[in-house]
């Protein structure tokens, strides 16, 4: 066929087209912007007539003859002259009706899921399906850049009317179109420009000032570095009558049904995200002018609604706020959303959709799109209708089960809100009764009969049972249970004589030694609580502890005598030496166990066993008072869980740290042996591998073949990831690893997960498991209501292991030990200050400290996620990430031990992590600094030297590609000098300018460089590397002959 090419006219693209085009660039191969509008013709048409109907509709609407193109750095719409359309036909006449239906669905799905490129006409795809001789079905799918949901209604109306007229042999009655879409675009550009646009943008800047850039949705997976459009949808129907009640509340409140539904959505998000400030996306039809009513095209504009949920308002109050704010927002609903994005979020992070991530639509009459596209534009988006509604969700972030749970919670909360709008948001029902039961009871079904006892009695029972077994090995000395007990009894009598007894304290300023263990047992036997003091602490801190604890008595050694008051008892001095000498004769005092008659008062399980000082992030160290009954309860569980305690346990950490209770009192109540030695001392290795060892994650790299336990490796004290464990587990495949969580206030360990030998351990944070015997774990929101599984809550612990409180600190105790609304009346629960969430299997994920919520640029950061990623890279043995504020602004800094260089690591992280999770500096260290307790010493981490790479002065472009990118950036951004390390967005770039820059670069290098490459690689050198990689890939794709031809051409150029 020959003939002149069709005539074309160009006009500026509308703002909406520009926005859709830019968003579409993130993945041009996705059908996310396809809109289906199928039509079943009334019977009686011929093929030519059916085709003619579509020809006529396309002729009427320029939008359906429009494609988009970059023209001199600006996006234009190209309108092509009208002409006949050509429709392929699928003949299904030979099939049965059910077969036809099936095939029709398949064809519709196939068509709907085929991406429509915007740069080539037409902006739609269509087929005719023949069901009978004169029975035709039209499949029609258009790109959203030219077709919105109102266009679907117009399209249906026109196809219906034209085919009616064709069958009747009359002229169709269709409204006159006074303008076309391109006219609107020109008018809009004229209206929304200059001072008027500035005025509107000022409104949005004020409205969205300091809004959270990311809604903290409870994700199932970390955000990937790049957001795609992959999505899925959960369909649901509002229960019978609910929409009527929604409308009734709306009427009574002078609001609309949409406002009620939207308020419930905001309330839901507030509850599951734990926030009082969030932004929800809604949209306007954008057709408020009469001449636009009949025009097919893209008019919809997103509107960001900032929802203020602060102060726990009633639902009725929230509805009033939403009403007021929505009216305000809609008054400015014509401000092109893309311009708002550029104004409030110019630093685009390709892992996060800007301004809002959760959207809400109420489309009461039109149904949802009939074809499942497997895509979504938002992280979460509700489309509520009077019939089938749906929740669209991003599959990169959410599991289907989570999306279903969100739907259930929305419907439950909405029903509760309209039933009683006087309820506060925190009171609205979120959990189903069954779910509530699950998190409060089923997952806390830990009841286990334990006869309440004192630790003293347990140890004495063990002495009686195994008097000759070895209880303690230290510095070459071995003590049997009987000899250890005898020595402790002698010392205990001295302590009682010096005033020690139940409800008093004895401080121990005693280095790791046989004497230390004897002293601990002696204090327990006297009925007093021992207060271990780390002899490695600075003198001032030791002085503070001895002052604060108000001990009845201080025990020290000659080596530590200078640190303690003069009246302290020196347990290794001549006068006391006979107390410990195991060959002592009877003259040194009775060796048999003390009874209540020997003590100053009867000893009860409710008396304190020890007081251990902990230093919080703020304030002075505080003494945690732990009663015998709690220690006894923990030890009962530990003995049953750690078979290694009946063997040899290596005790290496200072006893001032409650982690050591397991390795000290555990073996002594299980018939095992305590081997006391520093982890770096040769005596730690003497006698073969221990059966039991408890460490912090920071110790893991120190565990060689001789130190590693044979039965149980217990890890506590800090967050643990699979990456930290991988190497050790691979080397010791037959040892169980137990991740034990527990603040001192809930006695050593209150939640634990056992990783059986050989069990698969998924990457990332290791679960802390389930509450131990007779302990309940509650995950609560700010109103102390249980949060649903998957949702982040603060961890509260109740049960037998809850400590008495803080020594002589009533206010602090009252603040942290709260009335427990669950379980037996009158009990308390300890507020841990830790964040966690229930996994679907009833195990807990530890998510860090609530008061150390790490935020950078307003986004919540999980440092463990970055650490895991670093540890998974070659050449990284240890990694720690912190937030530093050395320069005033919070910045992420990573510390690594290993051979890898920081440049390579930064590049690797940038490939896999969202931009906001890539540390601004990576510092190499020979070893991580540790506190005496073996925990990471964060205060000792050095400040990074030198500037942040991206901001580090001018570096001249080093390659041709860098020079090209720098030149284009400089020109587009009107910046004089652009260096290899400069960032497009930092220099003032935005999406629109980025669009121009990329179009310029594409024209220069003739490679298909996607727009998203700029979002993920905004630094000149990085983008240049991408371009070089693409060129290399293209060369690889060439045949040998083509390469030869290319080279010949190159050579030709040179000569």
């Amino acid at each position: 066929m020959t003939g002149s090419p069709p005539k074309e006219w160009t006009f500026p693209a509308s703002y909406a087209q520009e926005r859709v085009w830019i968003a579409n660039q993130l993945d041009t191969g996705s059908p996310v912007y396809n809109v289906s509008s199928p039509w079943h013709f009334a019977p009686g048409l011929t093929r030519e007539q059916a085709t003619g109907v579509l020809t006529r509709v396309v002729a009427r609407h320029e939008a359906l003859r429009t494609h988009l193109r970059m023209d001199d750095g600006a996006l234009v719409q190209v309108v092509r002259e009208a002409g006949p359309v050509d429709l392929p036909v699928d003949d299904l006449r030979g099939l049965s009706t059910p077969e036809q239906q099936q095939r029709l669905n398949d064809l519709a799905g196939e068509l709907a899921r085929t991406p429509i490129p915007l740069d080539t006409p037409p902006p739609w795809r269509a087929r005719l399906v023949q069901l009978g001789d004169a029975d035709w079905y039209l499949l029609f799918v258009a790109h959203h850049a030219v077709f919105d949901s109102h266009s679907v209604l117009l399209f249906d109306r026109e196809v219906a009317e034209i085919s009616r007229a064709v069958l009747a042999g009359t002229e169709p009655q269709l409204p006159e179109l006074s303008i076309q879409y391109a006219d609107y675009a020109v008018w809009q550009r004229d209206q929304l420009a200059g001072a008027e646009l500035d005025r509107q943008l000022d409104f949005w800047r004020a409205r969205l000032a300091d809004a959270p850039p990311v809604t903290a949705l409870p994700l199932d997976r970390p955000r990937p570095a790049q957001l795609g459009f992959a999505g899925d949808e959960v369909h649901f129907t509002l229960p019978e009558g609910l929409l009527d009640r929604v409308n009734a509340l709306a009427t009574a409140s002078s609001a609309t049904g949409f406002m009620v539904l939207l308020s419930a959505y905001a309330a839901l998000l507030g509850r599951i995200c734990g926030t009082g400030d969030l932004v929800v996306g809604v949209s306007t039809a954008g057709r408020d002018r009469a001449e636009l009513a009949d025009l097919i095209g893209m008019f919809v504009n997103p509107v960001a609604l900032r929802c203020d949920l602060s102060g726990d308002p009633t639902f009725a109050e929230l509805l009033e706020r939403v009403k007021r704010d929505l009216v305000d927002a809609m008054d400015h609903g014509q401000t092109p959303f893309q311009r708002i994005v550029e104004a409030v979020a110019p630093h685009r992070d390709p892992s996060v959709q800007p301004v809002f991530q959760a959207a809400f639509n109420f489309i009461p009459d039109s149904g949802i799109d009939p074809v499942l596209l497997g895509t979504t534009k938002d992280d979460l988006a509700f489309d509520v209708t009077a019939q089938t509604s749906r929740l669209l969700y991003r599959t990169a972030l959410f599991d289907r089960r989570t999306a279903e749970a969100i739907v259930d919670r929305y419907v439950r909360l909405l029903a509760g809100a309209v039933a009683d709008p006087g309820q506060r948001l925190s009171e609205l029902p979120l959990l189903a009764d069954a779910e509530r039961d699950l998190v409060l009871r089923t997952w806390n079904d830990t009841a286990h009969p334990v006869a309440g006892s004192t630790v003293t009695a347990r140890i004495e029972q063990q002495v009686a049972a195994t008097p000759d077994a070895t209880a303690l090995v230290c510095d070459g000395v071995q003590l049997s249970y009987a000899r250890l007990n005898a020595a402790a009894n002698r010392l205990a009598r001295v302590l009682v004589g010096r005033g020690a007894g139940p409800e008093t304290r004895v401080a121990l300023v005693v280095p790791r030694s046989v004497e230390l263990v004897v002293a601990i047992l002696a204090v327990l036997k006297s009925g007093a609580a021992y207060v271990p003091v780390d002899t490695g602490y600075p003198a001032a801190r030791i002085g503070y502890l001895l002052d604060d604890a108000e001990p009845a008595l201080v025990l020290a050694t000659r080596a530590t005598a200078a640190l303690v008051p003069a009246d302290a008892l020196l347990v290794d001095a001549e006068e006391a030496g006979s107390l410990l000498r195991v060959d002592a004769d009877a003259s040194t005092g009775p060796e048999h166990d003390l009874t209540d008659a020997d003590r100053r008062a009867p000893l009860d399980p409710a008396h304190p066993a020890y007081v251990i000082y902990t230093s919080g992030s703020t304030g002075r160290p505080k003494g945690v008072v732990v009663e015998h009954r709690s220690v006894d309860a923990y030890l009962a569980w530990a003995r049953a869980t750690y078979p290694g305690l009946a063997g040899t346990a290596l005790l290496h950490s200072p006893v001032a740290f409650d982690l050591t209770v397991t390795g000290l009192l555990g073996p002594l109540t299980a018939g095992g042996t305590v081997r006391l030695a520093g982890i770096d001392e040769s005596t730690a290795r003497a006698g073969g591998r221990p059966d039991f060892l408890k460490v912090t994650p920071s110790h893991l790299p120190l565990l060689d073949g001789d130190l590693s336990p044979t039965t149980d490796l217990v890890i506590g004290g800090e967050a643990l990831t699979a990456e930290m464990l991988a190497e050790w587990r691979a080397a010791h495949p037959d040892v169980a690893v137990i991740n034990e969580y527990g603040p001192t206030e809930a006695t050593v360990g209150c939640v634990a997960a056992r990783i059986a030998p050989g069990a698969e351990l998924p990457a990332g944070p290791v679960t802390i498991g389930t509450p131990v015997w007779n302990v309940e774990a509650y995950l609560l929101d700010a109103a102390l209501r249980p949060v649903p599984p998957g949702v982040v809550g603060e961890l509260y612990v109740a049960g037998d292991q809850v400590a008495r409180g803080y020594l002589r600190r009533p206010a602090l105790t009252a603040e942290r030990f709260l009335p427990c609304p669950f379980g037996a009346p009158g009990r308390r629960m300890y507020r841990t200050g830790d964040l966690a969430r229930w996994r679907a299997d009833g195990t807990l994920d530890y998510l860090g400290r609530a008061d150390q919520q790490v935020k950078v640029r307003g986004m919540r950061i999980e440092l463990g996620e970055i650490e895991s990623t670093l540890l998974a890279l070659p050449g990284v043995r240890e990694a720690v990430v912190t937030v530093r504020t050395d320069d005033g602004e919070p910045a992420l800094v990573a510390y690594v031990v290993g051979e890898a260089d920081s440049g390579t690591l930064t590049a690797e992280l940038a490939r896999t992590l969202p931009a906001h999770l890539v540390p601004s500096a990576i510092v190499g260290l020979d070893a991580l600094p540790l506190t005496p307790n073996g925990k990471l010493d964060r205060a000792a981490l050095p400040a990074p030297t030198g500037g942040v790479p991206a901001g580090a002065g001018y570096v001249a472009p080093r390659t041709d590609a860098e020079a090209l990118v720098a030149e284009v950036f400089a020109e587009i951004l009107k910046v004089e000098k652009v260096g290899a390390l400069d960032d497009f967005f930092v220099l003032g770039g935005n999406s629109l300018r980025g669009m121009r820059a990329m179009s310029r670069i594409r024209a220069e290098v003739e490679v298909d460089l996607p727009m998203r490459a700029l979002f993920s690689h905004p630094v000149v050198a990085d983008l240049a590397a991408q371009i070089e990689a693409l060129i290399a890939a293209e060369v690889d794709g060439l045949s040998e002959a083509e390469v030869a031809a290319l080279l010949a051409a190159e050579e030709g150029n040179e000569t």
Partner: protein
Amino acid sequence: MAEPRFLVVRNDEDQYSIWSAERELPAGWYDAGFAGTREECLAHVDTVWTDMRPRSVREAATA
């Protein structure tokens, strides 16, 4: 917005704590007769909770 109100509360063991005045008090806990801001309530606890031993321990000791 007004600062949230709290109550000083006490259980049968004479252990003190604080509780939002807006929320229902859990079973086994009683109003100890002082209401105020969080800080005021905590300051009050400091003055009244002078013996932090649970009541049962205290009574056993004096029996």
